């Protein structure tokens, strides 16, 4: 269980998070709310990329698998090389191929990332996070830019990968929580 207690974070004059308290249990938690309310800031705090001005975050595991809001893939490398870069010795081509196929991207391991469409890149960056062996999965708008069919495939893949793990998924679709079989947490303006 990850626990946030009275977490505050400001960037200059702008107070983004004010006394946020939240419990993230094992399983899927979907985080939703209007843009600019601090969803991404909250994720960055969990990832250790930002430090809270005050408050406490406990229960974070040492390894976290993440899909950022941006794809953050190396454009000049192939899909396989991008996955191998992040996963290191844990990379297994057959496992990667199976997951990519489940995401609607069969046989794309040897394709250069620069040749992929936006939706394909989104799924590759999702695959990278899902393949990474970590007890916490943090996904920032993983289904953004996906059409209805690929969105369904991606939701099924996340649901499968989140078994036995803690997954925090930022989404603008409140209905995703039910599809992912998780809880919904709505961030609201204070």
């Amino acid at each position, binding site marked *: 269980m990850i626990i946030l207690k009275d977490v505050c974070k400001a960037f200059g004059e702008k107070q983004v998070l004010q006394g946020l308290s939240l419990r993230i249990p094992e399983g899927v938690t979907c985080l939703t709310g209007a843009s600019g309310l601090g969803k991404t800031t909250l994720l960055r705090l969990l*990832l250790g990329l930002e430090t809270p001005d005050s408050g406490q975050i406990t229960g974070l595991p040492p390894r*976290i698998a993440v899909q950022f809001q*941006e794809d*953050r893939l*190396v454009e000049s490398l192939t899909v396989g*090389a991008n996955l191998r870069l*992040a996963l*290191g010795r844990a990379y297994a081509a057959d496992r990667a191929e199976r997951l990519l196929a489940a995401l609607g991207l069969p046989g794309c391991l040897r394709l250069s990332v620069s040749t992929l469409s936006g939706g394909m890149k989104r799924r590759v960056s999702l695959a990278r996070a899902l393949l990474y062996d970590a007890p916490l999965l943090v996904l920032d708008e993983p289904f953004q830019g996906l059409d209805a069919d690929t969105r369904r495939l991606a939701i099924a893949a996340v649901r499968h990968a989140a078994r036995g793990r803690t997954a925090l998924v930022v989404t603008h679709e409140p209905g995703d929580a039910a599809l992912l079989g998780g809880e919904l947490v709505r961030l609201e303006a204070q």
Partner: protein
Amino acid sequence: MISTGAMKPSNLSKTEKIWRVAAVLFWLLAWQGGAMLLNDSLLLVPPLRVLRRLFALLGERGFYAAVLFSLARNAGGFALGLTAGALLAALAARFRPAEYLLRPLMVTVRSIPVASFIILALVWLSSRRVSVFVVFLMVLPIVYSNLLEGMKGRSAQLEEMARMYRIPWARRLVFLDLPQLRPALLSALSLGLGLSWKSGVAAEIIGVPRGSMGYALYQAKLYVDTPSLYAWTLAVVLMSVLFEQAALWLVKRAFAGLERL
């Protein structure tokens, strides 16, 4: 990121290729016409005579020895400048005080005329080693400034991704940093390689180390052998172009190999 500059010849359209060749032919004809008008090969040697002299030089063993002498020193100075420039750029990109400390040094090295360095270096070193030192000094600030800009322009987002996925530094260097530094590296190589031959041969002409291309140029000037002067100059230009193209080809092949992984 720094642009690699000129368009690749393979990307040129047929019309553009024809125009480029026509422009070269035009200037060769202008050179030939000027030489015919002047009719004094001491002042202006016709291009065909330069070519004849160059072919004659190609038959001499001393020519290849001089080319090897200058090539080895140019390559040595260039490798030293590239290594030192890359290491210092990495240091400056990592530690801001190092950048401040190195800035006056790099500005000074870039501003001092190459002839001053050559004369100064002749006081410290034997004439056979001066060109290595001078090429090193000419290449160092170019590599340093290009790579430093490239390193500063690296994606912070990819850095964060690498941090989250705990990618080891060696893998980061090869698969994250090098692809991002490719334009800066190619630009530094292109600029540095062109300058290395100019400065290296200038050092040889002033230091006159026996057996170098600069020595041959100096001898041609001393004996007012203008065709030889032109032919050796043409040889220096050709070596410079070949050296540059070979180095760029190797680096591009290495990057292409990296991208296929």
